[in-house]
């Protein structure tokens, strides 16, 4: 099942995915593509396709009263994509029928991780974005449960509760950079630009290049859900990418337009544990 992120109700018709992901203002990050709660609730009510709500922050204890109210209001949602395991008790109490999809970015790296979560209210795990193709293949060979995978988009590689742009602006008396969606960081010795944003939930650094794993779709045979991330991607490019994955856009045509914009992430990279290994 292809899951695409939408930025508003109107995209239920323009994006041809099997299910939709919505980010809700004041609860989700990245805030760049979030929508107000009222609209989110209408989408959940009206859509004839499954709607998933993405709640990626690591929340503080003081956030939980408003999260409780949110969970009470999300009746009809197909699932919650989340990172903070504190949300699981809320689901068990208020959204028993919703699927809980744990997406920790890089914690799920083996076929046996699900054993820990089984029976606790977590239904689906999202594979780490740092897996190589051979690691992915060996996991797929052994898994017994449903998984999700990020197969397209800019992957977050750093999330901090420290407001680094705000702190920097305060330190040097510069204008605030909070919320600006077109900033990048360049490390002094590397000629690459990492997309970066600070929002209400924290500070986020993303990869310099978008991943596109369409050519390796068959390797994700054990994944029930394939997710296409949207942040930093222009609308028409995102629509084309969804169409590539759903089979309505020819691969050759797509590659002609976008080939210099994406890579395969870690699929063919060898990551060492330490120097010399």
């Amino acid at each position, binding site marked *: 099942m292809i899951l695409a992120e939408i930025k508003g109700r109107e995209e239920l018709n323009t994006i041809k995915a099997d299910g939709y992901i919505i980010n809700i203002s004041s609860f989700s990050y990245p805030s760049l593509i979030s929508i107000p709660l009222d609209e989110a609730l209408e989408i959940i009510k009206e859509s004839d396709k499954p709607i998933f709500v993405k709640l990626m922050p690591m929340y503080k204890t003081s956030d939980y009263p408003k999260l409780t109210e949110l969970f009470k209001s999300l009746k009809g949602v197909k699932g919650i994509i989340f990172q903070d395991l504190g949300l699981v008790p809320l689901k068990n109490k208020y959204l028993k029928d919703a699927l809980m999809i744990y997406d920790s970015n890089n914690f799920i790296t083996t076929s*046996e991780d699900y054993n820990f979560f089984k029976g606790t209210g977590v239904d689906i795990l999202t594979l*780490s974005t740092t897996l190589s193709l051979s690691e992915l293949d060996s996991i797929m060979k052994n898994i017994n449960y449903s998984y999700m995978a990020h197969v397209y988009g800019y992957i977050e590689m750093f999330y901090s509760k420290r407001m*680094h742009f705000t702190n920097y602006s305060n*330190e040097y008396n510069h204008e605030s950079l909070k919320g600006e969606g077109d900033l*990048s960081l360049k490390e002094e010795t590397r000629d690459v630009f990492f997309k970066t944003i600070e929002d209400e939930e924290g500070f986020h650094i993303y*990869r310099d290049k978008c991943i596109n794993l369409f050519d390796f779709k068959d390797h994700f045979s054990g994944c029930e859900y394939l997710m296409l991330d949207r942040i930093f991607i222009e609308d028409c490019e995102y629509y084309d990418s969804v169409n590539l994955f759903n089979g309505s856009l020819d691969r050759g045509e797509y590659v002609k337009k976008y080939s210099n914009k994406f890579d395969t992430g870690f699929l063919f990279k060898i990551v060492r544990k330490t120097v010399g290994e």
Partner: protein
Amino acid sequence: MKIELLMPAGNPEKLKFALLYGADAVYVGGKILSLRAQASNFTLEDIKEGVEFAHSLNKKVYITVNVIPRERELELIEPYLKSLEEIKVDGVIVSSPAILDVALKKTNLHVSLSTQASAMNLSSIEYYHSLGIERIVLAREVSLEEIKYIKSHTDAEIEVFIHGGMCSGVSGRCSLSNYMSLRDANSGGCAHSCRWTYDIYKGDQKLYDEEFKIGSKDLCSIPFIEELVNAKVESLKVEGRMKSISYIANVAYTYRRLIDDIYNGTKKDDEYYYSLLGDSVNREASTGFMTGDAKESETLYSKESSLATQGFYGIVLDYNSKRGEALVEVRNVFSKEEVEVLSPSLDVRSFRIEYIKDEKLNLIKSANHAMDKVIINTPYPLKKYDIIRRKV
């Protein structure tokens, strides 16, 4: 139950120093499945000896099994945890779901949830605790007020980081190192890319001249220990398995004094404990999230000021009471000068080195070579494991 002071130990020697200088417990990494891959780490035999040594002092050893393993490492988990159980370690510190599952279902080990899992709120702590995890090492983003609230609303044991280096991002979620250095942070290969220097760009345009930094200053929680004791958290943890013996001993010594003084009702001004810590902070220290959000004062904007450990001169191996001389293993160059002695349970003392002899009893001007053994005069008896350092 008195609060636990939990110190890091990167090798068997550091384990001894940590425990002798005041730690109630140490955490160590084995040769496999542990972060801090560049720390020396312990063989199973080392762990066994460390556990026996700690237990002889009525102290504890926890083992960090805190990597996020890859599929090829799965077969290592159960035999390793069973070996640790046989050795009678006092617990394991884990973050990976796959390892947690084996530890909880196939062993009787005491299990702590590593800070790598970033338990940041009461609900997540209750979730983990309900699955059998006895102790939660809180995320470093939790403030003192939140810690107090959490501890008063859970039966889980709570462990709090009080001193040392901190991730700038949410622990365990960061893959900067993976992307930028091809070194897997969650397997122990973190390249500390968050401490590098960056510039901010808008399109092709560099926005500001000032370098952009996101590295965190080190944490130092001296002002908050009394409230943590009163909050009845179970354990206070110091970061730093890669740190030197001198650092480990000094930090353990300082927090031991502080904790004991709190329990004895003899706590002095914070400045006293800061003075004991001396230079045992490798980067500018701060209070992290203890007082709330981490503002600009918590970020390391200046050039990294790693303090060298040249102040650490040597370790006493033996004392000759007849001659009033100590046999010292040299760690950094020293000569005839004023020095301090750090000894477990005693106030810091100072004296002047009047002469230095080599092992053949020849008088020498200075001790120049690390790990050489030299003899120095001392005005009072010293003991094995006393530390000789530069007088501050």
